[in-house]
């Protein structure tokens, strides 16, 4: 008879480990499956990762964690998007908002109508048609009205938060749901000689932990899938040059924090600035081949506005991912499965996707060949699409002021991305695959934001009358701006939410930012 899967061991208690533990323990609440998590305080966690994208709300909703509780416990603020400064060219900025632009005009997709207007002498900026941007600029924030489909409700939101506090919240949640936590450092990994599957782990105190199925959340160390099972790492450093980061928090001196992240390009990478309730997370992500750690450190200090809290340490990484995330009886989730620089705050999303896919495909015994294949297929798709999206920011630069940007501008990019760029250029067609992260509005933001314009706006737009269209666009723009100016300030909504003891409705739909149907 087949051995039934009865026990799952998660190695690692960073955000990935506790998100996985929380979701599995919630899902298997009524089953006889035991879940165990091993973490080592001595080793600690990566301790960065403060910006999210809207999907996290669905994760919390799935676990039944009320939004006000989450905000209170993780010191969160709201996030409506990311502002990119100096990316397309120096002194130029644009925003990638959570939400869609404008409203389709009959059968004509909005962005094609807008492009048609621009190609015919119109002057409207695409970015004037986003409610998220309109609110963000004025540091206002209100919840989208899920029940109406009016122009000012077609956006979504995420959070800036303290990831270590989130891990604590999830730890409590998981332990309440029966997850057993073991403190200790894993020294040895034992494998079944015949099958090559992992059978048990030995801790520094000689204790042995065995399980039927292992989840590797050991961070960059990639202890199980990489070190023990030897799964190869696929490096993407020919397209993504940054390989180092320094994080340095500062005091938040603004009473009304910005409801968006800032990413400012510098000479050999970019700075982040993430406003939380009581502090601002700052960092410099750079390529050590194009600048030194000292320079990166000093320039970050120059960049930071408020009082700096603590020294930054250098974190090294290689962009890329394990060729397969599921090998034998082990699934890698989090940094152990791969890493893409935090430019679009996608790491927690990748963790979530892996968890959801795993829940869908969790084997019941040792027969899991097809499940494994399906899982790896899905994760590859997600990683590669996000990879392309991040590369797009570098490739579309017009900057040539440093060697770093010269390289980026002229580099050869993956064929899949080149194809997306060409399609947009030719007839404003956006190939968003209709699944996975980043749908039309996201590609559009970066492409247009960094100066790429289509040559032609497609046949349906051709039947629009320019004068009428321009008038309509003006009205739309004015409506969005006016509505945004009536919304409360970010801090007021935050305070209100924390006070509110009612559970919020199910999160509003994702508004085209991402789709979980992959």
């Amino acid at each position, binding site marked *: 008879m087949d051995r039934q*899967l009865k026990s799952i061991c998660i190695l690692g208690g960073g955000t990935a480990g506790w998100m996985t533990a929380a979701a599995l323990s919630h*899902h*298997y609440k*009524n*089953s006889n*499956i035991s879940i165990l998590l091993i973490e080592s305080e001595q080793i600690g966690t990566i301790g960065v990762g403060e910006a999210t994208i809207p999907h996290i709300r669905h994760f919390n909703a799935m676990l039944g964690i009320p939004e006000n509780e989450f905000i209170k416990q993780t010191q969160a603020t709201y996030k409506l998007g990311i502002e990119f400064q100096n990316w397309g060219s120096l002194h130029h900025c644009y925003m990638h908002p959570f939400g869609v632009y404008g409203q389709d005009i009959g059968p004509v997709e909005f962005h094609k109508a807008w492009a048609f207007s621009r*190609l*015919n002498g119109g002057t409207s900026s695409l970015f004037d048609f986003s409610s998220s941007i309109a609110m963000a600029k004025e540091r206002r924030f209100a919840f989208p009205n899920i029940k109406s489909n009016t122009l000012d409700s077609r956006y979504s939101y995420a959070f800036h938060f303290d990831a270590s506090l989130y891990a604590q919240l999830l730890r409590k949640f998981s332990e309440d749901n029966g997850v057993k936590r073991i403190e200790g450092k894993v020294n040895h990994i034992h494998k079944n000689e015949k099958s090559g599957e992992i059978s048990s782990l030995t801790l520094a105190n000689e204790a042995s932990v065995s399980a039927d199925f292992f989840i590797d959340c050991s961070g960059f160390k990639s202890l199980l899938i990489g070190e023990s099972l030897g799964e190869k790492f696929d490096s993407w450093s020919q397209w993504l040059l940054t390989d180092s980061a320094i994080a340095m928090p500062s005091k938040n001196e603004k009473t009304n924090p910005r409801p968006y992240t800032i990413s400012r390009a510098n000479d050999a990478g970019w700075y982040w600035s993430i406003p939380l309730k009581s502090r601002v997370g700052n960092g410099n992500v750079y390529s050590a081949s194009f600048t030194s750690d000292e320079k990166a450190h000093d320039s970050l200090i120059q960049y930071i506005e408020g009082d700096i809290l603590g020294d930054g340490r250098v974190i090294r990484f290689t962009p890329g991912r394990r060729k397969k995330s599921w090998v034998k009886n082990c699934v890698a989730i989090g940094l152990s499965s791969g890493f893409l620089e935090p430019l679009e705050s996608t790491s927690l999303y990748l963790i979530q996707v892996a968890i959801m896919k795993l829940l*869908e*495909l*969790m*084997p*019941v*015994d040792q*027969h*899991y*060949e*097809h*499940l494994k*294949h*399906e899982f790896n297929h899905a994760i590859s798709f997600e990683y590669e699409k996000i990879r392309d999206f991040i590369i797009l920011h570098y490739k579309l630069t017009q900057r040539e002021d440093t060697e770093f940007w010269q390289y980026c501008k002229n580099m050869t990019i993956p064929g899949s991305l080149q*194809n997306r760029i*060409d*399609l947009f250029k*030719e*007839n404003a*067609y956006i*190939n968003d695959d*209709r*699944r996975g992260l980043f749908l039309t509005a996201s590609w559009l933001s970066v492409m247009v934001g960094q100066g790429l314009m289509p*040559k*032609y706006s*497609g*046949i*349906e737009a*051709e*039947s629009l009358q320019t004068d009428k269209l321009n008038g309509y666009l003006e009205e739309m723009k004015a409506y969005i701006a006016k509505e945004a100016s009536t919304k409360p300030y970010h801090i007021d909504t935050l305070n209100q939410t924390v006070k509110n003891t009612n559970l919020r409705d199910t999160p509003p739909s994702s508004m085209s930012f991402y789709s979980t*149907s*992959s």
Partner: protein
Amino acid sequence: MTPDINMTKNIAIIGSGIPLFLTALYIERTTRGLAYNINIYETTGASSNNHYSAQKFSLSPDVRNFHKYLEFSENDFFSKVKPGFSLGQTYFGWTKKPYHLSFSNKSFQLLGQEIHTVFQHLTNNKQDLTFDQLCIGGHLSQLSRFTPPSAHKNSLFHVINYGYSVSEDRYLDYLKEKLLHINTTSSHLTYQTSTDDFDTLSKDRDLVIDVRTECVDVQKDQNDGQLYRHNLCVDIDLNMASSKIIRSDGNLIKLVSTDTETGIALYNKKATLSKNDLHLLAAEAPELELEGAIFNKILNSEQTQKITSNETSLDVWNDNIINLKRLNGLSTGLYYDRFWLLRLALIELKKHWPNNARTPSIADHYNAIMSEYAEELDFIDHLHFHNNSSENTQLKTLIATHSRGGALIELYQEEGRLPQVALRSMDGDKIFSLLQALAINNKKTSHYKFNIDKNALIKELFTISESFKTAALKAPTIKTYKQQLKSKSTEQSL
């Protein structure tokens, strides 16, 4: 704006039959009022090689949106084409029991989950409950009743979806009439019959769309090793609410319902047709006489059941030529109708519409998407052929190893997971319907436990099914519905 947009562009559409008129109407509608010249050439000959001896065929539900785009009114269509309504399809000879696949969606969620997710966990307790009984469309079909979808979101009838079954001649005439009408009123279109060769007709065009229907003939088809060699569509029952698809000796026989003389003549012949019946049918049906020769050829020829089409890309679009006739041979009519791919190809063409047709990036992407659709069609066909009662293990193995579809069936069968295939045209419920219908069951139970007694859940599902049935009984019979429609359209024309 780049200057060449202002120049008038020349498009040639070359072909014959329904594909030509569908294409011409669609392209005309898409370019109406814009700087395009469209020359339509109806080629003569060629089409008699068509491997469909169909006189009647069904049209999948998406055709309704397509027609809407072409500005056809349903009343007009109804009075001129006299279609039957098709709520789904019933398959005979594929599994031990006939099964029905409804075009309508399941209308509800249970325990916060899509209904197929819940249904999956009830493998052993389901008794006689079939998945299709949880769908209003399934009940309507079974009861030969019909009502169009209700506009009210809360109505049980809101989820109804339906296609048509039509007579080829009438549909063709209808489309042709529409085109001729446009031809007389519009100056950007010319229509002519032509025997000229392709090269001459397509010379110096900005875009050429080739829809000549010279697709695989019976002989070629055999060598190609398609899953089955021939489609035969006849009408048999005036008041069926769904088409019937019979598998017999490797042939596919599709029975659809249209108001024709033959239909009336064959009214009493029900679905279980033998080889002899087919001969009989061929003799009896006046429209089929014409096809008698081909028909006999099929019945007497050797069976071949190989699977081919390992092509990764269809390369429909090459330079300034879009070769849609390539799609014809792929459309099987087994689940979607045989013009399904053509309609999709046209819709995608609108989305990909080029400023300059000779743009490789656009053509490449278009080809990739069309290949995906073709693969999807393949997968859906494979599902039908991959059933438990099939004794052809060789075929089964081929299917399992041939396509992603095959692997996904194994995923479901062996490891108990519903394939969440990224099918563009089918959602989880639809795929699950198909798996259920084909008695492809999973062998495992999940770890997941519902906080609800399974028997209570089954009871609940039965109650739901009964309430659907009760609701379905309130809908008019097909016959009554058609009469109502007829009197409505007479009223309108008065």
